[in-house]
């Protein structure tokens, strides 16, 4: 993955450090020591056991888009409607999360091409407030859907969320209503809404736009559910099986369409976009990364023709 020009300065510190060959991470599943550079090159998947590390929004965009990305909604920034304060004030929490993650909110939205197809792309990031949905999250996603509807292009959203954000109270919860209404309008016009659920997707995000999508793809082993594991265990007063709420479990339960290994994800998205593109054509059998390099096209809604 070549690093695009626009990227530096937008990534998490951790990801940025991935160019430093000496930095390493330990796989929480198999214990393997993985050099950051290798890990990043492998899309943050453990090369030994296939464990999927949580991925930063910009790293995700780099791994999925063809190299182009025009961000929208960066000027929409969180406020403190409740005047919240506990151990820290809410603004202080936002500030430290922004510093740690390099993000201004829990979602990054914009326009890109994927395998040559222009799409609206929203990527949530668990590193910012646990990917919780606040007012800005909802506003950015709504802006994205409205613009995608105007452009009549598919919308692809990567979910990663602990649910609605407590510190913004009911105004956070109302983003479920807002995003749902925006999705409904987008879909009523016959546009394609493609969702990728990543680890973890729960609560208010899971129970609104995430499960409204036409096609729902989940990353291997991602934890997906409405209620959190702890809440359920407290309710039923027993431990849940490990498999419960995993992507694989949901596939069996009929809740999602497919489970995909992150290393096959871009290829899968391109295939799915091909079926629903206005100019339906089959790409050559070249791998997606080859295609995306050779067929790069501008972001302004030009439909690839062949």
């Amino acid at each position, binding site marked *: 993955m070549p690093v695009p*020009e626009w990227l530096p300065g937008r990534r998490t510190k951790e990801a940025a450090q991935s160019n430093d060959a000496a930095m390493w991470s330990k796989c929480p599943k198999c214990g393997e020591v993985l050099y950051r550079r290798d890990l990043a090159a492998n899309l943050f998947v453990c090369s030994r056991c296939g464990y999927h590390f949580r991925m930063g929004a910009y790293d995700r965009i780099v791994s999925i888009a063809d190299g182009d990305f025009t961000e929208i909604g960066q000027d*929409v920034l969180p406020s403190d409607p*409740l005047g919240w304060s506990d151990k820290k004030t809410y603004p202080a929490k936002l500030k430290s999360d922004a510093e740690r993650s390099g993000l201004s909110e829990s979602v990054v939205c914009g326009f890109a091409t994927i395998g040559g197809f222009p799409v609206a792309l929203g990527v949530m990031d668990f590193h910012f407030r646990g990917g919780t949905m606040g007012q800005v999250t909802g506003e950015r996603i709504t802006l994205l859907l409205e613009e995608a509807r105007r452009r009549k292009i598919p919308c692809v959203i990567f979910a990663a969320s602990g649910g609605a954000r407590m510190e913004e109270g009911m105004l956070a919860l109302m983003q479920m209503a807002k995003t749902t209404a925006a999705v409904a309008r987008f879909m009523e016009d016959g546009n394609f809404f493609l969702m990728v659920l990543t680890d973890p997707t729960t609560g208010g995000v899971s129970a609104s736009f995430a499960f409204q999508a036409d096609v729902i793809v989940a990353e291997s082993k991602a934890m997906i559910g409405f209620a959190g594991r702890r809440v359920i265990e407290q309710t039923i007063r027993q431990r849940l099986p490990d498999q419960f709420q995993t992507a694989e479990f949901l596939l069996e339960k009929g809740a999602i369409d497919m489970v995909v290994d992150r290393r096959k994800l871009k290829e899968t998205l391109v295939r799915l976009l091909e079926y629903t593109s206005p100019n339906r054509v089959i790409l050559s059998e070249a791998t997606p990364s080859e295609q995306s390099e050779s067929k790069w096209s501008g972001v302004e809604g030009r439909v690839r023709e062949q």
Partner: protein
Amino acid sequence: MSNNVIVEREKGLVELERRITELREASAAQPLDMSTEIAALEAKYQAILREFFGTLTPWQKVHMARHPARPTSLDYISRFDRFDELHGDRHYRDDPSIVGGFAFLRSRAVMVIGQQRGRDTRENLRRNFGMPAPEGYRKTSRLARLAARLKLPIVTFVDTKGADPGISSEEHAQSEAIATCLQTFATARVPIVAAIIGEGGSGGALALAIADRVLMLEHSTYSVASPEGCAAILWSDASKAEEAAARLKLTADDLRRFGVVDEIIAEPLGGAHRDAEAVVTRTLDAIDRSLTRLNAESPERLLDQRYQKYRRLGEWRAESLAPTGTAQ
């Protein structure tokens, strides 16, 4: 429910109430004029009522909203001019924690749907303490779609701690069920009025509360999570629920200010259960007035206004950022 702070306070009133009643009976049976004594006791009683309930903290309101005697959805629905309950999600189960069906309200045919907790332990078990399973939300969507097809306005009553968080609810795709509810209410081409009558807990409450007009009882609460849940999530300590309640801005006044709620229905001193009759009538009147106003709108305008209403909810700083990198 015995550790309900409102119920605890009410226990202190019982002795006084008993004495007033006794005195009244004695006064009626005897020639003695005890009106002065009775008036004094009643004045005291009213003073205590005001002291106890005149100003409620958010935490006290949470308990008022959960008060076991607080009118439930069926207490409102039974005061409609008529109600015929419809059952089932057509797939798997009839979920008793959602009650819905055709009704006449002030001679107007409507579809009414409410979350129903139990009024005693047995009913609570049957109704899962008012926490709907996916089947309940699917029944809700089905009835809302039916109403939209038949051009019947929709009235909802919200009263739930939240959606059921059990194993089978997860297995039956609770997320999808709630999301479908939200989408159905967001797109239904008929007027919708929602009334938050008790506890409005999280997405499980919102699933019945996307409406053209949202009414809320004075002492109801409506929040992003239950105070206990919020405290557990933020501080891993459910016992800090009172603190969470104070911070969450979950009272009707707060939510009216935020634009989440359109109208507040007053409750008598001490809460809706102290004069259920009056509160129910007042609520039904408010619903009826709302429907009359909404019925004047075309479906297109209604839908557009509903969209814009939720579109605008929220506040944020909008500043032009110095780009950290230039997009291609």
